């Protein structure tokens, strides 16, 4: 005999059987039922043979389907949520960059306080960063050029073969990347911490209350200073790398040319594409890194304890963005991904 105990309509129907004069099968069945929060419970005085087994199987399958669908929903939700958040972050960063450029293009934005912020940021981001830029560039230049010269001797190829490779590696890839690393490491994290502190302590509200747009006063000059700094430092780093590489290479006896000959050989590879590539990469990567650092700073909660968190997050996110932009631009420029030709 089958007795209907309860029905919570709209749910997946799950059944359980209870055998009269029960054996171990009943306990399993009831446990399954409890776990699955069964909406429909059937009590059946049926033998332990086929109908009970079928019902038990149905209960198990139904419960499994329900759990799988919940898990799938959770996974989909998590993936979708993460994707939406990332997409929102990218669009916000692009919006900050575009907004900053639009403001920078308007002469009315460049009021004396904004010019002062820009000048101070240029000092911190460019001028004060020169010593560390020289150090990094010299070390990287020595590594790259000495390695190249050693391989010239080993492989028996002439320096004319390797020179274009060196030039392009330095100007198009390494120098912009190093400039970004220097600027983010020295100033990006500091900017995020500074803006985070301004936000957390209520100083942004003080600025806004006086009729000063925080976007014009706090964000735009920093983003523009970032772009200019990465561009300028990138050029300085490229030249320093070449010079340091030459000096050490000559001292080690791996470079057998005069400085003028070396400079001529390297610079003979210069073409307009290099300038386009270098400019695009430094300005875009610098702008995005600056935008991310500003955004992260403004995302601080109104507590000073939140500032270190946003500062470290700004550093990681801007570095990630710089590497992604660098790789993406290289692919777009060369229309190649690894060994695959695009288009």
């Amino acid at each position, binding site marked *: 005999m089958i007795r209907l105990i309860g029905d919570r309509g709209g749910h997946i129907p799950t059944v359980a059987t209870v055998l009269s004069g029960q054996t171990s099968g009943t306990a399993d069945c009831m446990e399954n039922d409890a776990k699955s929060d069964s909406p429909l419970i059937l009590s059946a005085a049926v033998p332990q043979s086929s109908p009970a087994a079928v019902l038990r199987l149905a209960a198990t399958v139904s419960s499994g389907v329900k759990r799988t669908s919940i898990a799938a929903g959770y996974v989909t939700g998590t993936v979708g949520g993460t994707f939406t958040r990332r997409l929102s972050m990218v669009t916000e960063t692009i919006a900050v960059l575009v907004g900053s450029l639009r403001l920078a293009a308007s002469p009315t934005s460049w009021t004396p306080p904004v010019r002062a912020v820009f000048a101070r940021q240029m000092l911190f981001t460019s001028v004060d960063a020169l010593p560390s830029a020289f150090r990094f560039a010299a070390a990287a230049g020595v590594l790259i050029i000495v390695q190249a010269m050693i391989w010239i001797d080993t492989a028996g190829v002439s320096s004319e073969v390797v020179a274009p490779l060196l030039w392009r590696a330095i100007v198009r890839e390494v120098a912009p990347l190093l400039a970004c690393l220097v600027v983010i490491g020295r100033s990006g994290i500091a900017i995020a911490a500074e803006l985070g502190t301004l936000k957390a302590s*209520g100083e942004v509200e003080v600025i806004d209350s006086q009729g000063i747009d925080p976007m014009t006063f706090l964000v735009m000059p920093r983003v523009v200073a970032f772009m200019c700094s990465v561009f300028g430092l990138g050029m300085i780093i490229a030249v320093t790398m070449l010079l340091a590489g030459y000096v050490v290479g000559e001292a080690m006896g791996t470079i057998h040319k005069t400085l003028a000959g070396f400079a001529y050989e390297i610079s003979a590879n210069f073409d307009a594409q290099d300038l386009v590539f270098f400019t695009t990469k430094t300005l875009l990567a610098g702008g995005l890194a600056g935008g991310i650092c500003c955004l992260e700073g403004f995302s601080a909660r109104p507590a000073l304890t939140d500032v270190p968190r946003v500062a470290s997050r700004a550093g990681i996110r801007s570095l990630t963005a710089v590497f992604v932009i660098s790789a993406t631009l290289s692919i777009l420029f060369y229309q190649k991904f690894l060994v695959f030709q695009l288009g």
Partner: protein
Amino acid sequence: MRQSDSQTLEMIDAEVLRLEDVSFFAEKSTGIGMREFSSVVERGGFVHVDVDEHQDPREVCSALVGLKKLVGGNVLYGGRSMFGTDYRWQFRARASVGRVFADTAWVENLTLGENIRLSLSHQRCDAGEINRRVRSSVDTIGGDSSDELIREMRKRPSFVDPSVLQQLQFVRALCGNPQLILLEHPLRYLSTDMIARVTDAITTAVASGAVAIWFGKSSDVPERIRESMTVSWDLSASQIVCSTGFSR
């Protein structure tokens, strides 16, 4: 896109501030809200909001100048909404508001002088004119100790005594010839002679057409200020609910 302001706001004719069924909830537990509150304040109006020392009017003041979202209603300043999409006008409107903050009031990485000149300089006021206005405000607020105030303006806020900071807040609030003055617990840290000078400065500003809104304990309000007050916004359970006075 928000643009920087490049000129000052024109003088508002009669009705400076109009609140239409404004509902606002403060995030802080000590903050002050508004519940379906309506009021009109005309030129020369002086509003008093009787709040205890522990109550923080910062958020409601920010809401009045369009920096905090309202739950309902609208705030009109000079007949235009502070919550519209004309951001350029809103920045100009805020630049014409003088404000004495209850807590954080300064940008810490600027000197006090740079802080005071910031808004005027951002509006592209002539440097000579800025110096003249600041000097005039310092003389009014500082009295005999105005030279000391000038010296203190070269320092950063963290290195200056709270009473000097509070006087310099008045200098900043008044040097821009404001049409609306928001005063959040304005007499904190001030000595008796300082209070007398501040009182003179505020009554003079109100007499010349500015609107002042004073958030503070009624027992602390100086007699001269009390005589000038025309409207009172009354609180119930930390929310401004009605006004008494001519604008009711």
